[in-house]
């Protein structure tokens, strides 16, 4: 289904509310895009996703966090306490947290590996949840853990395509967390994820003469021009802040 367009052909944006990211993307993520947030452990993936959801909820967009790895009741204790977070968002249902293991249970998925039908059932269940609850921002943390259970590359492709099509049609902007090792090539475990995603944002660590800097880089984003430069990131109580990585003609590579 075609995505909404402005008269000038420019796609409508999902203004993330993370100022620096909106700035890099010239106004936000094109609405309905599925974006991979890819990075090694502890690089800030979950924090970025949570800020994205809170900012959306504050702005009146229904936001849903699907957690696979961490129980959602512990989640907020383990990320930085954002000062713009408001309990009322959760009570009003604007900001929802859901444990995927509970969904598996409800769907009667008890085996470690999902077969073809179960994979479809999972995609359809998430899709209808988004539809019924009019979710405009979705986070799946992490897509890597879901893919581990789907296992087969073909089924992973089917799952992501099926889900992505519905989400995009509903104008739901989605962040898929992808866990990678810093030594790895590419931005996802199976490669399918990054190929199918509309965007890829990479978080990482950069060592420069003994200092370890957190970095963020937008590698791809369909539907908009954007800077592909590397930024240095800080996770603060007022949200994610970015400044350009200084080159100084002397940076010893790495990423």
């Amino acid at each position: 289904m075609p995505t909404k367009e402005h008269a000038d052909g420019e796609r409508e944006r999902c203004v993330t509310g993370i100022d620096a990211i909106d700035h890099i993307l010239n106004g936000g993520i094109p609405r309905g895009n599925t974006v991979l947030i890819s990075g090694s452990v502890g690089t800030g993936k979950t924090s970025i996703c949570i800020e994205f959801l809170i900012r959306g909820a504050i702005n009146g967009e229904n936001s849903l966090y699907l957690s696979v790895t961490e129980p959602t009741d512990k989640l907020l204790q383990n990320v930085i306490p954002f000062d713009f977070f408001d309990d009322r968002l959760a009570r009003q249902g604007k900001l929802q947290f859901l444990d995927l293991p509970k969904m598996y249970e409800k769907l009667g998925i008890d085996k470690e590996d999902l077969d073809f039908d179960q994979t479809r059932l999972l995609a359809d269940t998430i899709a209808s949840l988004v539809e019924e609850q009019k979710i405009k921002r979705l986070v799946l943390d992490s897509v890597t853990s879901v893919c581990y259970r789907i296992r087969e590359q073909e089924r992973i492709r089917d799952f992501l395509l099926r889900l992505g099509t519905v989400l995009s049609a509903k104008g739901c902007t989605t962040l898929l967390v992808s866990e990678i090792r810093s030594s790895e090539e590419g931005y996802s475990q199976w490669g399918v994820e990054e190929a199918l995603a509309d965007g890829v944002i990479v978080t990482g660590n950069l060592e420069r003469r003994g200092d370890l800097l957190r970095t963020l880089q937008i590698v791809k984003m369909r539907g908009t021009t954007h800077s592909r430069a590397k930024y240095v990131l800080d996770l603060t109580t007022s949200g994610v802040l970015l400044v350009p990585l200084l080159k100084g003609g002397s940076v010893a590579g790495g990423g």
Partner: protein
Amino acid sequence: MVEVSVTAEVAEKLRALPESSAISMRLKSDQYFDAIQGMIDRFAIKKDLEVVYVTSTIPSQSIINALEVLEIPMEHIWFVDCISQIMMSQEKRHPHAIIVESPTMLENIMLKVEFLLRRVPDRNALVVLDSINSLAIHNNTKILSEFLHILVNNLRSRGAYTVIFSMQEYETEEIRNMLVLVSDETIELGAYSGS
């Protein structure tokens, strides 16, 4: 008295400058604390500016102590401290001091300045860089120029004053060139030197 004169001179010269100015302040070591007093007490406090003081020269606690002796209220004064990481434990840190691990983490200095200014979007600010000489010990000229360029432009667009300290005894040709490139004004406190 010499001390009073330096203090008054700094304040007077700063007051003559418009918002968004980037100022090089060329000091002799013995004028250091007087210059700080003039800049903060007689200029920033009078103008009701939020002060973000980046120090890579002496620990923030030493400056805080000096300000407290002068009974300068700390409410709107914040520190980004690049040299206390090793020396100070978490509990001993002043609540208005944020630590940057090392003066080589220039991006993190910018991020902390940004963080502090974001908390007071409606207030005008003075950002002090103390000093270019100590930053030059830890960083090469290229990266330091790039840092100053980005920082100053960012602060200028916010309407903030930027004051960059340069200790005349430790100035090199490179530092002088850098200051010329990045600042709109130079305040030189040579007049009261020596005595």
